[in-house]
């Protein structure tokens, strides 16, 4: 994308209404992200339903600004309360809270705000550069590649979101794939698994499933052990020194790259990006013993990584219609609702859309840094609202958000059902992200597998001999084998053989 196109689209966004929407949505996102119990996914999903009647461009501004704000907002509670507002900010607790305990809460918040801004900016640069490039590769995708991509997405998402037990991640993914088959299938319009219910003919709606899985399950989880928060630390100086930031430029660049790469992997989100960035920062640090005790590097790494992931997660959304994270999945759903068709044909059908999205990110980044650095004390007060008052209010909003899209109570029932399912999954260590990703990729897998088989009259050879399919299969099996215990078993056998030879 040429800088002139980007600048033209960015300047076109600078009208009063767009700037107003960007700022209030970013503020809303920061509050959602900041409050433990609310997630970025829930915030974006709620607003997707509520902005259904808005113009498409304003809806994108509101949703992207909320996403950016929410991922940053969680750093506030991570620093002040040692509790991440969203999972993306868990790594921020490690060094953010120790800084707050020694009286540098404001400085930590300032560092987090500017690191998040730099991370988002890095992400949007990569979005601008790599989306058109990946779009060109995506034009080579046929039905075979899209099917194998769906399989790869589930396998890698399950692996990375449940690192200790990927089997549960894969199970969640395949449950999501199966649930997406409910409703009229696209080739023969045959109603599958509807039990004669008219409400199920169109399948299960994505927004109620998302709001239930991420929102209602979180409400139940919070109320299982409701705790209120008291902020003891004083917040003073907020603006960090430029020299301090520049001295960590290597951490910033490294974390930005990690964030974008992790974001581009289907279904894996900002929390993984933050942890990997933090881990690498510690490994490459000259003073790793300072990590966990208030190291600026640690805080900068996690916040740059998780915010760079936002831009990275949008790249596969725009080019392949595959979400890179759960909030990106909601953005994808919102684009579909507003008649935008993300995928390989997007640059052809709507050539300036990618530039517009990049411009919106830029606007949201500016809003995030301004609000993050200026509204420190008022936002701290919001953190102390009792959970027993906040949670029913959030549930009411979840109900409205689920009802708003189709105007039917069935979606609200669905939201509650998936809330209970999501809670039970969480209690038994089944990750929710693969379920949601499977739900989104299911129609793509179904459509493309059958279409591919029809085209080749049942031959599966193209799934194996097309180059992009081969790359995707190799990556898929590499992930499965790496977690199967086969490699450690082979290594053990080689060691035993070597010692018996000696």
């Amino acid at each position, binding site marked *: 994308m040429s800088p002139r196109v980007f600048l033209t689209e960015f300047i076109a966004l600078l009208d009063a209404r767009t700037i107003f929407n960007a700022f209030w949505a970013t503020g809303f996102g920061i509050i959602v992200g900041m409050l433990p119990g609310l997630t970025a996914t829930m915030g974006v999903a709620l607003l997707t339903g509520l902005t259904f*009647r808005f113009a498409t461009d304003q809806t994108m501004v509101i949703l992207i600004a909320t996403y950016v704000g929410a991922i940053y907002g969680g750093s506030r509670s991570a620093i002040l309360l040692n509790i991440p507002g969203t999972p993306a900010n868990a790594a921020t607790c490690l060094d953010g809270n120790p800084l707050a305990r020694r009286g540098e809460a404001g400085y930590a918040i300032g560092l987090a705000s500017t690191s998040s801004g730099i991370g988002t900016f890095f992400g949007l640069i990569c979005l601008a550069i790599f989306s058109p490039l990946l779009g060109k590769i995506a034009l080579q995708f046929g039905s075979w590649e899209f099917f194998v991509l769906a399989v790869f997405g589930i396998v890698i998402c399950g692996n990375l979101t449940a690192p200790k037990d990927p089997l549960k991640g894969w199970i969640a993914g395949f449950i999501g794939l199966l649930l997406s088959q409910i409703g009229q299938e696209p080739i023969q319009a045959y109603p599958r698994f509807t039990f004669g219910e008219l409400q199920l003919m169109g399948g299960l709606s994505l927004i109620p499933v998302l709001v239930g899985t991420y929102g209602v399950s979180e409400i139940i989880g919070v*109320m299982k052990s409701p705790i209120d928060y008291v902020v003891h630390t004083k917040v003073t100086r907020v603006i960090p020194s430029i020299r301090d930031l520049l001295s960590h430029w290597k951490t910033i660049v490294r974390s930005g790259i990690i964030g974008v790469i992790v974001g581009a992997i289907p279904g894996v989100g900002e929390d993984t990006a933050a942890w990997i960035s933090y881990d690498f920062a510690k490994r490459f640090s000259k003073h790793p013993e300072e990590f966990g005790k208030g190291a600026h590097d640690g805080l900068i790494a996690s916040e740059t990584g998780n915010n760079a992931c936002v831009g990275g997660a949008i790249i596969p959304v725009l080019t392949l219609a595959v979400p890179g994270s759960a909030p990106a999945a909601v953005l994808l759903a919102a684009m579909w609702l507003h008649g935008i068709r993300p995928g390989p044909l997007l640059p052809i059908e709507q050539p300036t859309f990618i530039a517009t999205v990049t411009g919106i990110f830029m606007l949201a980044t500016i809003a995030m840094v301004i609000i993050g650095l200026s509204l420190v004390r008022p936002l701290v007060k919001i953190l102390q609202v009792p959970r027993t008052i906040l949670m029913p209010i959030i549930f009411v909003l979840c109900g409205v958000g689920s009802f708003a899209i189709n105007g039917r109570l069935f979606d609200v029932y669905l939201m509650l059902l998936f809330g209970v399912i999501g809670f039970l999954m969480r209690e038994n260590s089944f990750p929710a992200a693969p379920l949601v990703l499977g739900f989104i990729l299911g129609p793509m897998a179904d459509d493309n597998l059958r279409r591919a088989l029809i085209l080749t009259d049942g031959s599966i050879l193209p799934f194996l001999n097309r180059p992009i399919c081969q790359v995707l299969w190799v990556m898929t099996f590499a992930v499965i084998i790496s977690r199967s215990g086969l490699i450690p078993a082979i290594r053990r056998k080689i060691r035993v053989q070597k010692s018996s030879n000696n």
Partner: protein
Amino acid sequence: MQKADFWAGVVIMAVALGFIGMSFAMPWRSSEWGVYAAPGLVPVVLGVVLFGLALILSLRAAFNRGFYEKFAQSEGPAACAGPNDPEVQKAGAASSMSPTVRVLTVIALAAVYVFVLMGRVNYIIASAVFVSGFVLVFKGASVLGAIVTGILTSVAVWAVFTKVFLVTLP
């Protein structure tokens, strides 16, 4: 967790078998493209894979105690605040209920709101009753405080969403 995994695997296997069974009951050769366009093809494939994964889960839970011992050992101390940290305090008298009772109460209150009140009673009244009832049951505020919270919430939600967002409420 071992026991929970075993039974989770059994339930998931049953669900997978259900999907497979229903898929085989669908027409398989009703179109000119034959079995490749059959509506049950992909659900059968997915059901079989899911059944296999769930079987591995149940078998692992039944026979591989070593995995769960290693899993429990790898659970390190939490990086973030726990219930004894000074920043957190147990919320009011809600802490007198056991966690299971709290979970069931939340689900029951939500079910009453969604299945009984919504769509049958005026939205403002339904939401006010739900929020007030929720706050009262979990003792988050006094009776007056709960009622005021409920009314303010429902009126604010109604006003913002019908007048600003132009959303139709149930």
